[in-house]
């Protein structure tokens, strides 16, 4: 069986492990989904329910054939509703203010909003500074079970640092512009 899409990224390795331990692919997949259901209570699509029910009801390991189309969906699917690009215009310890530009519809007016620092993922906190750029997206997150919820994600842009080459180019550009004033007193 070939698994061509996401959702079970480590399957190949696991399949190999299963094969090494003498399990068939089907045994392995069954084991995989049953363990997922035990750890993730909400993983119960209608397609799997009857089979999993059988799996739970039976004392001996059931034989379940899982076809690839049913394996294809990723665990999470994101459906974008709205996105903005923001530029931080003021920062305090607990919150920051930003000017927002609509990326979904370009002719919308710019907006201003205040965000609590909690809205930013912990690793991005150090990036929150005056002039920093971030993307704010709101959309539906759909799990493999079909559960849909509205989510908001704020991601700060990690820009590269200034390099020697950047600074040299900037200097040349500045010199070129300065010629404009050469002959003025």
């Amino acid at each position, binding site marked *: 069986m070939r698994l061509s899409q996401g959702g079970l990224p480590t399957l190949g390795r696991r399949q190999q492990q299963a094969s090494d331990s003498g399990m068939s692919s089907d045994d392995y997949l069954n084991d995989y989904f049953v363990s997922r259901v035990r750890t993730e209570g909400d993983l119960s699509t209608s397609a799997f329910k009857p089979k999993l029910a059988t799996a739970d009801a039976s004392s001996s390991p059931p034989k379940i054939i899982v076809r690839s189309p049913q394996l294809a969906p990723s665990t999470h699917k994101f459906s974008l*509703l*709205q996105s903005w*690009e923001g*530029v931080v*215009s*003021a920062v305090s310890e607990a919150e920051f*203010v930003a*000017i*927002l*530009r609509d990326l979904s519809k370009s*002719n*919308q*007016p*710019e*907006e*201003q*909003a*205040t*965000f*609590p620092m909690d*809205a930013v993922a912990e690793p991005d906190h150090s*990036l929150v*500074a*005056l*002039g*920093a*750029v971030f993307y704010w997206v*709101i959309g*539906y997150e759909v799990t493999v079970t079909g559960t849909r919820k*509205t*989510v*908001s994600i*704020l991601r700060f842009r*990690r*820009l*590269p*640092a*200034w*390099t*020697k080459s*950047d*600074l040299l*180019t*900037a*200097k*040349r*550009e*500045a*010199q*070129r*512009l*300065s*010629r*404009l*004033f*050469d*002959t*003025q007193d």
Partner: protein
Amino acid sequence: MTLKTKRRRHEPPETDQVEISLFGPGIGECVVAHLGAGEWMIVDSCRDRMSRVPVALQYLADLRVDVPKAVKLVVVSHWHDDHIQGAADVIRAAESTSVACSSAVRHEEFLAMVGASPRAMMQSSGVSEMRSILALIQERNLPGTRAGSAGPVLAKANVNLWPNGSARKLYDAEVQALSPSDGACMLSWRAIADGLPELGVPKRRAVVLSPNQVAVVVWVSAGRVRALLGADLEESASPTMGWRAILASPTRPTDRAAIFKVPHHGSINADSPQVWERMLTPEPHALLAPFASGGKFLPTRSDVTRLLSRTPNVHCTAPSGGFSPPFRSSAVEKMARQVTGGTRKAIRGPMGHVRIRGRISGGSLSVHYCGSAFRATL
């Protein structure tokens, strides 16, 4: 039957009329001035929210003004986003115009910041607009062109911006810069130098600390009409900077203006009671455009109260405090409200326009409001 609606056009001013028009959509401002005899000046620029066209070009087209020939002077008071958006487009369209910029732009620190802007990997900012302006002027300085004849004119205190040596045919009119002072330029260069890109430091959008102190304040004199256009110049504790430096200048105009573009959106840090006493007529017409930044909106209620204590004639281009944001889907609105605590506001609304016209020979001034503009009251 088809119902045809015709948009009401503005009527152009008469040859012997002076006009000062202030535009402001909630954030951003632009002054369009008729200096008489079909000659125009534009100070700063902002874009129409819907068409994205610089409002000055839109208005002059509406008046059927021949922009390439009739616009004689464009002043870029400073490079803050709310004063400069679309200025390069204005200069491109006004083919025969002189361009005046704050003399602070000449310094190598400023040019280094401008030079770095394309590599900052950021959305456009006032600094990158300034870069477009300087590049455009450079293109116009063709080989053999007399240096400085295409600009920019480096505006600083007591520099005459217009007419540039050419004689006026009908009556006297002139435009003079009252700022920035040399002291303000020196401090500005230091501040810019502190914010310049450094090796290994992550890139950010260029944010310049307080270019307001190097903003170009403009004095307009046309026939018997006087106007003081305050840009964003703030008051300073130092006698060599801000409004104090203008008041202390022995060469500043001694006349009094009846039209005052209130500096820095009416904020307290730009307020100078001495300016009202010594440079303005009693009860002048005060023109005001609002502003939003860093979670604050200008003018505040107390700013408006203070202005009304100085003159009953306060005219605003738009209400302060922002506008309702455009409605997205219910799911987006609900989530956005949850994240921002309902603080989201649109900072640009419909374009507001306050227009003041008066005869060169003097007499009363007439005020006209368009769009979201209104007369302020307590």
